[in-house]
């Protein structure tokens, strides 16, 4: 063979650069700018998982450094000195092999114990007085049914702080996965099954969530928000949401209501206090109180509503809501009226 003319130094240098770079990269992963970053948990459930990660990742980093370092060292140290090298033909060493079989066993057992316990905790039903909410996944939006109160809402989940929220998870079409990384790990919503999970928020605020199981064309457009409130604020919110919609006084909005009830909208949507009672699409009773719509992907403002009502499928691939202009026969005035009506649904 051709004795290599590649200089020995290149190998260690490149590997060191790589190892350093990897660690730096992993360190920067801990920066705070990412709303879905689960290495910065903001609730006790996510934090418990994060502690297990810290333990495992810590061990993994040590093993990584030791093993890659040893590999690098060995490759450099035992490079061919001469073509006539005659290394001793070692076939093995039982004691060594037993040792490096047992060390991983012990390390893994040490991690397995908290892991097994963590799993038991993860799936235990919360004690105390949990708020019970059923989450129903649809392509591509979330429906929330608040236990006894009968409230039905969509995409934006409001919860009280410091009180466990026990979610029952269902799906009407395909498999989805409910995930609010700052608060808890994900859990799938499977047609024909009732899964469950617990959320706990400690601080009032807004937490971003997203669908995590591939669910078709607009999988990337199925987000959600969790709003955590102090207990009193939550009760106030709940009372407001339980009110039925009132007929608008504004004439444009009133025309919008007429368009809504006589056109195609009523086929799929519900607005409590009106004849609209379909459940195929999001309940719009308090639509104007939401900050976002359509799987929480658009800010709830006039311009986005206009674009959405005119031609939903061009805004969200595969949208089950047909195009207002092309499919539902709406004209610009109808759409302006509908916007006014929707914005009256506070």
């Amino acid at each position, binding site marked *: 063979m051709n004795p290599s003319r590649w200089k020995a130094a290149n190998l260690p240098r490149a590997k060191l650069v790589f190892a350093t*770079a990897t660690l730096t990269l992993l360190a920067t992963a801990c920066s705070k700018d990412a709303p879905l970053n689960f290495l910065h948990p903001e609730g006790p459930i996510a934090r*418990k998982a994060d502690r297990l990660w810290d333990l495992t990742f810590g061990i993994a980093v040590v093993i990584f450094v030791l093993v890659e370092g040893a590999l690098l060292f060995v*490759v450099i140290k035992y*490079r061919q000195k001469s073509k006539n090298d005659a290394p001793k033909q070692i076939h*093995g060493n039982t004691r060594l092999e037993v040792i490096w079989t047992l060390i*991983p066993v012990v390390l893994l057992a040490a991690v397995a114990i908290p*892991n097994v316990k*963590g799993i038991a905790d993860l799936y235990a039903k919360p004690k105390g007085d949990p708020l019970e909410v059923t989450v129903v996944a649809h392509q591509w939006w979330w429906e929330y049914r608040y236990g006894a109160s009968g409230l039905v809402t969509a995409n934006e989940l409001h919860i009280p702080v410091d009180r466990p929220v026990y979610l029952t998870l269902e799906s009407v079409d395909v*498999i989805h996965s409910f995930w609010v990384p700052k608060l808890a790990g994900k859990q799938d919503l499977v047609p024909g099954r009732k899964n469950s999970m617990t959320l706990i928020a400690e601080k009032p605020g807004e937490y971003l969530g997203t669908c995590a199981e591939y669910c078709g064309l607009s999988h990337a457009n199925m987000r959600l928000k969790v709003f955590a409130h102090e207990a009193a604020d939550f009760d106030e919110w709940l009372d407001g949401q339980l009110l039925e919609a009132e007929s608008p006084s504004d004439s444009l909005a009133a025309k919008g209501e007429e368009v809504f009830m006589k056109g195609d909208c009523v086929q799929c949507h519900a607005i409590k206090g009106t004849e609209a009672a379909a459940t195929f699409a999001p309940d719009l009773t308090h639509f104007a109180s939401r900050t976002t719509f359509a799987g929480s992907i658009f800010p709830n403002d006039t311009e986005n509503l206009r674009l959405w009502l005119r031609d939903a499928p061009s805004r969200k691939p595969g949208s089950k809501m047909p195009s207002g202009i092309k499919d539902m026969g709406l004209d610009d005035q109808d759409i302006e009226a509908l916007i006014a009506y929707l914005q009256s649904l506070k």
Partner: protein
Amino acid sequence: MATVATKTGIFRRPSAKTGLWSWITTVDHKRIGILYGYTAFAFFLAGGIEAFLIRLQLATPEGKVLDADLYNQMFTTHGVTMIFLVVMPMGAAFFNYLLPLMIGARDVAFPRLNALSYWVFLFGGLFLYSSWFLGGAPDGGWFGYAPLSTLGPDVLPGENRMDFYAIGLQILGIASIVASVNFIVTIINMRAPGMKLLRMPVFVWMTLVVNFLLLFAMPIIAVALFMMSFDRNFGTNFFNAASGGDPILWQHLFWLFGHPEVYILILPAMGIVSEVLPTFSKKPLFGYSAVVFSGIAIGFMGWGVWAHHMFTVGLGSVANQAFAVSTMFIAVPTGVKIFNWMATLVRGSIRLNTPMLFSIGFVAMFVIGGLSGVTHSIVPHDTQQQDTYYIVAHFHYVLFGGAIFGLFSGIYYWFPKAFGRMMNDRLGKLHFWLMFIGFNVTFGPFHILGLKGMPRRYYTYQADKGWNLWNMVATVGVFIIMASILVFMANWWISRRRGRRASADPWDGRTLEWTIPSPPPEYNFLEVPRVHHRDDFWHQKYSQDAKGRPVPVPVGAAPEHEADHDAGHNIHLPSPSYFPLIAAAGLPIMGYSLMYKWWVPLAIGLVVLLAGFYGWILEPAAEEEH
């Protein structure tokens, strides 16, 4: 029967030795191996282009390169391609080419069956890829989760896209099952005298384990795919919850196949590395038995960890605990292998030729993939990692940094044997370093993206998620990988034509394939070798002094066989046949017919298949003597 054969000529065995026809009718394991290799590489390029488009789309937030529909087809096809049309058949290429050479046999046990495997694989791959021109490629993910994949256009675009998936994989599965039987029988029955099981090269051992895994795993996916096809086309409801079916049944079947499958993908590379490291360290593999038995242990334990793909499905805490623990402990035999490989290098005389660089790269990258794999077994945290780019990072470190690096190591190592010329070592090193850097620049950032919450299978993301920088870096890395592939292709092209002539034993090898000329004659071994040791060839070349150091046997005592054109004339070899091709051609015809519900062509496809088998049975055992 002989009279029919002579009168009609239908059953005459083809006799071309060169040219296209000789390749089409070949039953020579070496040629079939080369066909597998070229075909798999062509699909590697296709899958690479898909990956490139995916990365272009994700380079920036709100990318406009692919729309949602095309993106979903692209990531599904990328996965299916790399698994079923690249890594598996590339493994098959090595099994085919090397297995008989390493065990001292003249061919596999069933040469025509071997040809059938290749043609079925080729037609299955082409069938899958024809979907791009017939309404779109599969778009339900390589894992094809029901009911997304079974409820039709209401939930997933495309009339037939997932039929291409279900039927295409079914056809490819047939190729794998047929091949697995062939290899298992070959290893068990056709070893040269003295080649006891524990004298077999580790690559042969890993081949044996992989093919047992294939034999048992492929029928499981076959059943699942039949159920999927029936749900899609004939109104059954295996996976339809609304009619009493269960979508989770699909997941259990799929992963009961799918987890052994990941060992099917990695073990051939582990076998290659176990050959390359000793050769280039001038030492035997450290702890041969431990490496072999840990490979077997992985093969067994691989059946008991499938539900770790399903930790977020809702199987309950007891199931999750059991599978978490089994998953953690499958790391033990894997770790044993890593340590033994490293110990092989210790006190060796290491030559850093291209095959060795790729093997060391394999070990280095596989360690990373293995460690991130262990973190997935921490269920409470896996519910965070699941379906994020952290997972994507993990399996690319195992399958690209692992399997692909190992396969490239094997390509550089055995190229001289197969083609009689050396690959250019400087270009090879350039290839390695570009690929090593490009790989880490691309897939290293995936860890960070995943931990920052970026989900998989999203065709787009928004600028406010904190994922912009690392997505851009990852996409830059793809260009480096592509450059490395171009270097490899150039190297192949040049080396095939003008590479330095290779001797029979250019690397100072240890196993039987290096005892015969490069490239090997059609009959492989002039005389069937007698095996007295593990690493038998090494022991022919070297004796040991009192301290266990190798001492070359005087030249002449270990004769090198040079090609002698008259030698081997009387060796009986299996005759070429075109019936495997005919039989295989029936399958895609049946596939299209089933999908489009064309009943007459379905019958025709069946007739073609049966005609192929009929001719196969009736053709004479050898071409007639003239």
